């Protein structure tokens, strides 16, 4: 058993994470019914990110995995965020600096 990913996680950790995920699901439904102005989307996303983080760290054992796995996970999401930002940047800034057409 040299592979770090073979770490055996106690069952109670899984059950605890499971409970937390259910609570967060309820929370996200409840929060959606509140009017937080511009904050609705960020809050919903923050909850989704926390849930995803719980699944990744515990169910998927990344917490007990070598650094390389952390890098792969992080770069996957970072890369998507980056490409999204690059694309959205075009749409958001169309009014800046004298957009063609205006």
């Amino acid at each position, binding site marked *: 058993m040299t592979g770090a990913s073979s770490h055996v996680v106690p069952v109670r950790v899984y059950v605890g994470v499971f409970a937390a995920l259910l609570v967060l699901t309820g929370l996200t439904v409840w929060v959606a019914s509140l009017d937080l102005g511009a904050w609705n989307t960020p809050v919903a996303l923050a909850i989704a990110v926390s849930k995803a983080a719980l699944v990744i760290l515990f169910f998927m054992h990344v917490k007990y995995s070598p650094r*390389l796995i952390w890098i792969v996970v992080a770069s996957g999401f970072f890369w998507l965020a980056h490409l999204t930002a690059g*694309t959205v*940047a075009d749409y958001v800034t169309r009014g*800046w*600096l004298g957009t063609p057409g205006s």
Partner: protein
Amino acid sequence: MSTTQPGADARGEGTRPPAGPPGAPPVAEPRPSRVNYLNVSYGVKSWLLTTDHKRIALLYLASVTLMFFLGGAFAVLIRLELVTPPGDLVQSETYNKLFTLHGIIMVFFFLIPSIPAVLGNFLLPMMIGARDLAFPRLNLASWYIYTLGALFTLYALVNGGVDTGWTFYPPYSTQFSNTHVLAAGIGIFINGFSSILTGLNFIVTTHRMRAPGLTWFRLPLFVWAHYATSLIMVLGTPVIAVTVLMVAVERGLHLGIFDPTLGGDPILFQHLFWIYSHPAVYIMVLPAMGVVSEVVTCFSRKRIFGYSVVALSSLAIAVIGFLVWGHHMFVSGQSTFAGMVFSLLSYLVAIPSAIKVFNWTATLYRGSVSLQTPMLYAIGFIGLFTIGGLTGLFLAAMGLDVHVHDTYFVVAHFHYIMVGGAIMGYLGGIHFWWPKITGRLYPEWWARIAAVVIFAGFNLTFFPQFVLGYLGMPRRYHYYVEEFQVLNVMSSAGASILGVGYLIPMAYLVWSMRYGPKATANPWGAIGLEWETPSPPQTENFPRSPVVTWEAYEYAPEEEARVV
């Protein structure tokens, strides 16, 4: 210094060659009856069900060569048509299908798999001292996926073709074209997964299968280049896959994703398309850079100048190359601000490319330079890639790009990168490792002639296109105005020379497989693990797993090294 690893066999394989004259092959002539990966088993089944990375590389070699000559045939027809201004050879519909299929086949089915799937597949495990790639069955699956994708595209071809351009811009591709967009799109979608799985396999192999002692900064630069390429394959290809899927869905079901009359935005497609398709250019040229690094060091008998800078610049190109896609959209109506950011980043990606060129040049300094065929291709690569890269500066310049965008200037630029760069690298690599792959030497005299013919033909074909582009001839034009004719005729003349140039190696390489002189394990006196096993290698690559105790490209003992 040159430690013999434990258990090295009688022939001395797996050991570093003596620090003395490297010209002398360190390995004795292979015994004639030796079992190697080619003669270990026979029959169609032994090839189609193989999981040996070397045999899979040869399957790819056959497939991409076929696709190359198919795509090349379309190029010949295009250049023939463009000899005269009016479209008098083929109909406009046919012409549009010709350049579309030329683009699709060359980009997706030749250039992208060429070096990684053929040379990378063959060499990567050997260069790191592994017995195979991490996932041999996945590797075979990649080839079948590639073949399936190619079959879909060929289906589109024989049923009348597709006429959207390889860029598939909507709304033309989704609502207006009445050709086989779906079949071609599905072909590209499927083929994408072949590329993803190959990249995944390379990354895992490079991380997990290196021989003991082979640290990251002892890896051959070919491996670094393939590692960087694989990152793009894994992170970029899925985006084009899902984008093609959206085009297919929009076309098939008339959904409004990109079509403005249905509420979509055609500019969004261009973003998603170029998110992959710009880095795809680096998928084509980074492996060629890896080949050039190997060849230049071998034929200068010198460690590469600035090893770590060259290694890391591959990663820099892969990463920054991902963030420049918007320079394809300066006239599309993209926001000026986004355009500025993309222009700036495009300039930044020029820097690591320039660094590589300077380092290769500096490697020759005080070397022992031998101008054999692979070196001729490598030098050709350096020259043509320099021109291709520098003309990239013209296109990254927003104010100038407005004029040259979608003209022959762009066509010339990317052919300098893809043909002058990637294909020169590919041919150089094929010649360099041909003795290792087949166990035979090719005829050197013919090979040099071919290299010179290809170089000359290439320049005559594509240099006039820079001028044409600045004069304002738009790309994808079937008819053109008369004042462009002289330059077009020059280009077509060059293309005929280039075409002949590509047929010569095809002929003598096939000939040499049977009649070429037998090759020793290390005919060039090169340093690298792949040269320390017989030519051709056995199925397990090495009789025993090698242990590496030397630096990359250690042509002379380290103690003598100096820093200028």
